[in-house]
């Protein structure tokens, strides 16, 4: 018989990809109007977990986020989508903590209480692509990244990892394990009205981070990206731009 799974989904809150960004002393700074959302890949991770719940295979789904007060909005959204409980590990800021520190914090929280820990394949802002692998290594679990399909039959998880446009890789993972989910055609759901109403009343547990974990930030600085080409901008009115682009394409012998 299928045992019911205890699931943890790790959620990062990130600035909306359209947010305007500037540099202050070599560090990225967002303006006050910035909208923060759930990291896109983490939504796909949560969706994967919710599909197991839909099939009655979960005992509960917990979500966790490490960051300042604003991340509660992302956690609230996870409850609206269908997670059962949410945990907020409160820190000053999350943007530049190393993946190692975030993974350590989550590992400390998770202990060995979960059967599957889901993460998104990466965060849209830092794009480190490490957290899931690090949590697994810290817990000594098996893991897989870039997962686009998952099946669970008789306590056996079979995952498909996407390698590129031509190739994917399929294998079994024992429970407990960590799974980093890649975005796919399986769209994350919109919250149902009943879940929205339920989530509104629900409390989000606030947890102080373990002080033994040094919240070290990556020693680094930021610049605008280096240009690898000297982009020649085509100027003028729309019709002038049209004529000039035509000339360029003609010169390149493709038109």
């Amino acid at each position: 018989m299928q045992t019911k799974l205890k699931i943890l989904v790790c959620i990062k809150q990130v600035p909306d990809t359209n947010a305007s960004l500037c540099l202050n002393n070599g560090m990225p700074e967002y303006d006050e109007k910035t909208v923060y959302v759930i990291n896109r890949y983490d939504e796909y991770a949560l969706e994967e977990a919710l599909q197991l719940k839909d099939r009655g295979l979960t005992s509960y789904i917990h979500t966790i986020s490490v960051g300042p007060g604003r991340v509660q909005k992302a956690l609230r959204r996870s409850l609206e989508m269908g997670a059962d409980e949410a945990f907020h590990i409160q820190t000053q800021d999350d943007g530049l903590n190393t993946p190692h520190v975030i993974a350590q914090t989550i590992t400390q929280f998770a202990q060995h209480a979960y059967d599957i820990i889901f993460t998104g394949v990466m965060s849209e802002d830092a794009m480190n692509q490490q957290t899931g692998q690090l949590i697994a290594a810290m817990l000594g679990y098996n893991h897989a990244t870039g997962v686009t399909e998952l099946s669970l039959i008789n306590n056996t998880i079979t995952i498909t990892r996407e390698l590129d446009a031509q190739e994917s890789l399929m294998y079994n993972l024992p429970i407990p394990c960590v799974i980093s989910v890649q975005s796919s055609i399986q769209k994350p759901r919109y919250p149902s009205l009943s879940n929205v109403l339920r989530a509104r009343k629900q409390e989000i547990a606030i947890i102080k981070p373990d002080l033994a974990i040094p919240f070290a930030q990556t020693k680094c600085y930021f610049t605008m990206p280096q240009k690898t080409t000297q982009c020649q901008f085509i100027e003028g009115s729309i019709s002038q731009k049209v004529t000039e682009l035509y000339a360029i394409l003609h010169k390149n012998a493709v038109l």
Partner: protein
Amino acid sequence: MSILVIADVKNHTVNPSTLEILSAANEIAKKNNMPMYILIPFGNIGGDSYCSNEFKTCILDLDIEQYRALNLVKYISTVIREVNASYIIGLHTPFSIDYIPALSVEINAQCVTQIHSLDVSEYITVTRGSHAGKLDQHIVINETPIILTILPGSFAPYTITDVQTKEITTIHIHEKDKHVYCKFITKDSKDTSLDEADVIVGAGKGIGSRENLNLIFEFAKLFPHSAVAGSRIVCDYGWLPYSKQIGITGKSIAPKVYIACAISGSSQHVAGIKGAKTIIAINKDPYAPIFNVSHYGVVADIFEFIPQFIDFVQNNT
């Protein structure tokens, strides 16, 4: 102290882009005067041509069909300790990124991923794209061992001049678990349109809907031998099939001309278009990172620009 390069795998063989990270490793090797090793993580991926008297080659005698991150990490970290590696360098691909960060827990090192350039002039500084390509993050390496993953297409490939098979050490693994196996699934590869096209028109999230994609198809039709492709998100939305996805998790393209329409240009996408001879970007955001890698830029709304362009071509040819 040494530098260890870990070979990546593509189509059951060593990914030729491994030579690019060998070039990057060589820069650090020359700067620090360290010996260089290359580790071929599987015995059945034809790694024995990756040898030379300029570096040493280790082959882990594992089967690729028995891949599991947890096992590989155990064996590779032993090799890292044996060769006393200060710099461990891998390729940033969906295959390798699955296990490389986990090595950092095992050997207690920092790990920096998705690097696109390297500066060894004074200190060793690595640069990676961040914030969806809107910024570059520079990290000065002040502690080793350190693990780095480098984006494909970032360095010119290393040239192996003299193949010296005597420099190969094979590490035999005795405790193989016969129950562990994995299956490589090759997707329908009949679609070669992106390999054969002279002009590829790429659509980004900015096209807004599947219906609007018709505009991109009409635009592409102006060019003989053309094809339409998209960024990952366009394929996630189901507007285009994944076989038309350009980028690190999709295809790498090398047409005469690539025209990126309403594509912002994250490092994941850009890694797939470096082979294009000429890159043209059309985007209404003048700060879109795609312009940093383009030869020609048109700052315009595609819904205004493309219809006028189509009219112009139809009336003038």
